[in-house]
């Protein structure tokens, strides 16, 4: 019966509101039992989910602490941090992540803003494009980049060279990989910024600012950016997590980034990779915590009444 199904859904979603069902209204006792039942099942699912995620993590941690026979210790961590390549690759990846975030912000914020403001028809197209990285594997992206940018660039129909193959210089390669990372980060950046803009109704805010005499630069810097800051930040932290762990682009473009390094020592050493993986986990969690912290504080301020 339909009404029964409805009640079950309500109980499962742990709502404590009454909902009137046209027939067969359960009495108070049954309803509270259903509610407790709902709470019980949601806890079961939560615990199952948590185990699914925590067991491998715990195993990794345990393994990383067992470098010395029969004692638990941080030896693997010491070893891992001692390797100078660790710091080098780690710093490089961080720098690339920061560059990716900055460039993405410059690209995504004005784009999302303009689409919301003037080109709502283009929303679907933008969403489609930004989702492409989920459909097209990174390996295809990197081969495309290499094919296109490892040749000399000339003005069409002339021999005048515009620039050397990007893949032959260090700076060129960094630029290329940053561009690649921007593509990978697009789904996260675009979506969070776009949602952030919807929440604060940037259209009306823009018009309010315009009627007060503000020009585009003022509007973007003083009205739009501060109000999508938390959305931007959550996109940025996700981007950070992706870039720091990324392997495919970095190894095929020959960039000594943290991802390939982790992969490399994973093949040669037993305990250090576990230690580093665990550290990366902690960092990601820290990033997530930051998102929670920052958006939690801002959520109220941006929430409309």
């Amino acid at each position: 019966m339909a009404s029964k199904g409805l009640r079950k859904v309500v109980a499962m979603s742990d709502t404590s509101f009454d909902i009137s069902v046209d027939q067969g209204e359960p009495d108070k006792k049954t309803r509270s039992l259903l509610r407790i039942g709902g709470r019980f099942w949601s806890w079961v699912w939560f615990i199952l989910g948590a185990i699914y995620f925590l067991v491998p993590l715990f195993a990794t941690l345990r393994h990383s602490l067992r470098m010395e026979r029969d004692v638990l210790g941080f030896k693997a961590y010491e070893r891992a941090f001692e390797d100078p390549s660790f710091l080098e690759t780690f710093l490089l990846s961080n720098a690339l992540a920061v560059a990716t975030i900055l460039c993405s912000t410059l690209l995504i914020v004005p784009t999302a803003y303009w689409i919301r403001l003037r080109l709502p028809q283009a929303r679907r197209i933008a969403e489609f494009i930004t989702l492409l990285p989920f459909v097209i594997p990174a390996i295809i992206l990197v081969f495309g980049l290499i094919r296109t940018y490892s040749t000399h660039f000339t003005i069409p129909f002339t021999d005048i060279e515009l620039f050397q193959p990007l893949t032959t210089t260090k700076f060129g390669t960094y630029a290329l990989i940053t561009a690649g990372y921007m593509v990978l980060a697009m789904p996260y950046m675009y979506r969070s910024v776009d949602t952030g803009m919807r929440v604060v109704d940037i259209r009306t805010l823009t018009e309010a600012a315009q009627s007060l005499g503000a020009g585009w630069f003022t509007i973007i810097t003083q009205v739009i950016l501060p109000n999508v800051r938390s959305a931007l930040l959550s996109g940025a932290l996700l981007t950070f997590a992706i870039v720091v762990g990324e392997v495919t682009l970095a190894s095929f473009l020959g960039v000594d980034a943290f991802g390939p390094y982790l992969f490399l020592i994973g093949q040669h050493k037993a305990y250090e990779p576990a230690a580093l993986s665990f550290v990366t986990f902690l960092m990601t969690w820290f990033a997530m915590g930051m998102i929670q912290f920052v958006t939690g504080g801002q959520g109220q301020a941006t929430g409309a009444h």
Partner: protein
Amino acid sequence: MSYLSLENVTKQFGDVVVVDKFNLGIEKGEFVSFLGPSGCGKTTTLRMVAGFELPTSGRITLDGVDITDKAPNQRNVGMIFQAYALFPNMTVAQNIGFGLRIRKMNSTDVHARVDEMLSLVNLEKHANKYPYQLSGGQQQRVSLARALAIRPEVLLLDEPLSALDAKIRVSLRQEIRAIQRRLGITAIFVTHDQEEALSISDRIVVMNVGEMEQVGSPFEIYNFPKTQFVANFVGSLNNADAEVVDPANGILAMDGVHFKTAEEDFSSRKKGDKVKISVRPERFSFAVEPKKDNVIDCTIESITFLGAVVRIQIKIGNTSFNMDTFNNPFLELPAIGAKEQVMCSKEAVLVL
């Protein structure tokens, strides 16, 4: 020429004409309302004055200057939105000072002006709060203060009270009107609430699908509606089909019952013409003077208490009419089904 004038202003979206040859002159310090049903082009007209929409054709001038093509941030126009549109990242004081800082006013003057505006809208205590910490009514007052801080040449308000509850709506509209009077600022107020428009405007522009139906003072609009649409949209109205009987003496018949009208060009009509007549419910009363223009037999159908007013449904001929009388404890109400006589003056019978 008027302070603000719209000449033949037309706006099309694609093939759809949303505002059609709109002509209006507004004097300095005047408070004009745009009143009309949803989708009739009120907001679009207002947005053209603000500069957010470009007219397809026509001209808008403000204080003798053609502003038709000026960017919104080049016009000195204050705008108030239904959804308040306060900047969530700024405090009340920062919101109010925003336009001033853009005008590069020095910080002492900004401070002084912000304080002045805060006291104008009675929000001195809330200067350092953020918009989300304020009630809807307070937020809209901040938005009013923010718009007025830049000393705009015109203040545009697009249904500023629609999101508020009934009590606040009434008190805030009076506050807006009082402030507008005190500052002598020219204002256009968009609403679809007739009571709101009637209560605060110097003049009302009644609009219907892109066209202006009538412009006039609230008194004129209510008592002398020029079209059926205006008559029906503003206030409540009884409508009935009737036939001209004696054009020279203003006599017409509805279901065989004779009515006398004072309609101006009624004599130009021909005997037997079909017309529509309209009578406001409050113009009927129980007959006490048999010499009155229209003394009509009727049957009482129902009686409804509406608080200050009692609405009585009466049947004249075969047509039901509403009749409103003020409520008082000594009122002697007729029984349902009773035969009574009601009267109304000949001016009350509108032929549209």
